[in-house]
């Protein structure tokens, strides 16, 4: 009885071992599939520090430090982040994630670039705003987008040489993209509410996408406070190429795919047959002439 029990136990262990290996293999395979599927599952986040009151900060994503010594008025490059839900936190430099002064949950879509802006003052309230970006180029033009991140500006208009480009851009909002021929421009932000006007000069190149951020807190009656600008320019993404051809048109003769080996073989056979036949005929002719003589 004991022997039977031991045998069954041994069989059970083997079965368990095999099952464990199977589970492990499936898990590994699933993991590999997950990694393989991840090539197009990134989203892209750049972070802009537009809050003058929180000073230099560390940035944390899902509790892990993403950036150190992140200073007011700076913008990062687009950083790939796995699509999905994430928690972004900013804490004064060196204080750790538990001392975060700003916390925001981000729902990131695969393939989408985002600009996340740390915004506001202690008086107006601190916040993190997220903007979905579109970095696709527009023909041979440059693209530009304006961000009003300056507390106290109210609603602003953006013009260029007197031509209105953006009308009524509210605080904490980004404008639509403006497609514009490449060149040097001076854009003017005007706030009739605050009786304020400030300009920024930029060089816009073809196929670039430029973000112009207006920052700094404007205080009523404080003539020292001025609007400041930060620019961020990247090369835009081209659209997908046209790599197909019309299957219904007649093929170009010169571009027909020809299999040359059979043609060469035919040519050689033809030449050989011609040569042999020629000599045979000549020989027969000579033989006939000799016989005739």
């Amino acid at each position, binding site marked *: 009885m004991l022997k039977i029990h031991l045998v069954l136990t041994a069989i059970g262990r083997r079965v368990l071992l095999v099952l464990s290996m199977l589970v492990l293999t499936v898990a590994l395979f699933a993991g590999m599939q997950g*990694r*393989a*599927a*991840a*090539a*197009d599952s*990134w989203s*892209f986040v750049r972070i802009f520090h537009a809050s003058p009151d929180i000073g230099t900060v560390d940035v944390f994503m899902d509790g892990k430090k993403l950036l150190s010594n992140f200073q007011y008025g700076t913008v990062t*490059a*687009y*950083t*790939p982040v796995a699509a999905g839900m994430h928690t972004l936190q900013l804490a004064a430099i060196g204080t750790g994630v538990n001392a975060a002064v700003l916390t925001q949950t981000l729902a990131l879509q*695969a*393939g*989408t*670039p985002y600009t996340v802006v740390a915004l506001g003052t202690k008086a107006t309230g601190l916040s993190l705003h997220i903007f979905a970006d579109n*970095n*696709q*180029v*527009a*023909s*041979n033009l440059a693209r530009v987008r304006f961000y009003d991140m300056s507390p106290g500006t109210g609603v602003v208009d953006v013009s260029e040489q007197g031509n209105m480009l953006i009308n009524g851009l509210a605080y904490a909002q980004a404008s639509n993209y403006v497609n514009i021929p490449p060149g040097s421009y001076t854009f003017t932000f005007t706030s009739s509410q605050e009786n304020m006007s400030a300009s920024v000069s930029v060089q816009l190149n073809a*196929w670039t996408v430029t973000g112009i951020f207006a920052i700094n807190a404007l205080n009523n009656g404080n003539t020292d406070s001025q609007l400041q600008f930060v620019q961020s320019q*990247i*090369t835009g*993404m*081209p*659209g*997908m*190429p*046209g*790599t*197909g*051809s*019309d*299957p*219904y*048109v*007649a*093929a*170009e003769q010169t*571009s*027909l*795919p020809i299999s*040359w080996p059979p*043609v*060469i073989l*035919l*040519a*050689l*056979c*033809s*030449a050989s*047959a*011609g*040569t042999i*036949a*020629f000599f045979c*005929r000549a020989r027969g*002719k000579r033989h006939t002439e000799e016989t005739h003589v």
Partner: protein
Amino acid sequence: MRKFWSVHYSLLLLLGLALTFSSCGTLSSTSLKTAQPIVATRQPTGTATPTVQPTAVTNIALPVRLLIPTLGVDASVEQVGILPNGNLATPTGHPWDDVGWYDLGPRPGERGSVVIDGHLDRPGGYPAVFWNLSKLHSGDQVLVIDNQSHTFRYRVTQVAFYSPQAAPLQNIFGNNNGHYLNLITCAGDWIPSQHQTTLRLVVYTTLIT
């Protein structure tokens, strides 16, 4: 009668010789094409206007050949930019046989997303250089050789199909999280009214060595 046969045989001989030499001539020109010297200048792309000004570039490693052993692809690499309509340009030198490297992006071996496109088919539906690209699988290798004889070996990680309007452009062109090479060609059905196919095929690869 004898004269007739002599003329006949002579014509047969001449025909054979002509076919032979014409065939050999074509093969020679093909061989010359594959062995052509490396041109380290930017080529104008597009159909209406040049999209990239020619620039003399020396001592800069530029890709010259693309090899996909499992598909038997061995193609010359042209440089392509952006068309006036904003789309990625395609090879113009030998449009059906060459592939195009997007020269506003990183070079092979560099960090970021290197992008190479190539035609699926020729007018009339005959195969072009990336006819079999959809047959690639994860793990297959893609090699790029530059004009300084460096070989960059990439491994396929994903094969994906997108409509051209919904393709994740930032993923394809702007992922700097690693060293990538992304191959693009057409797929799906031809839409005569749009003069394009319904889909685009993207083969994502990552650098091995």
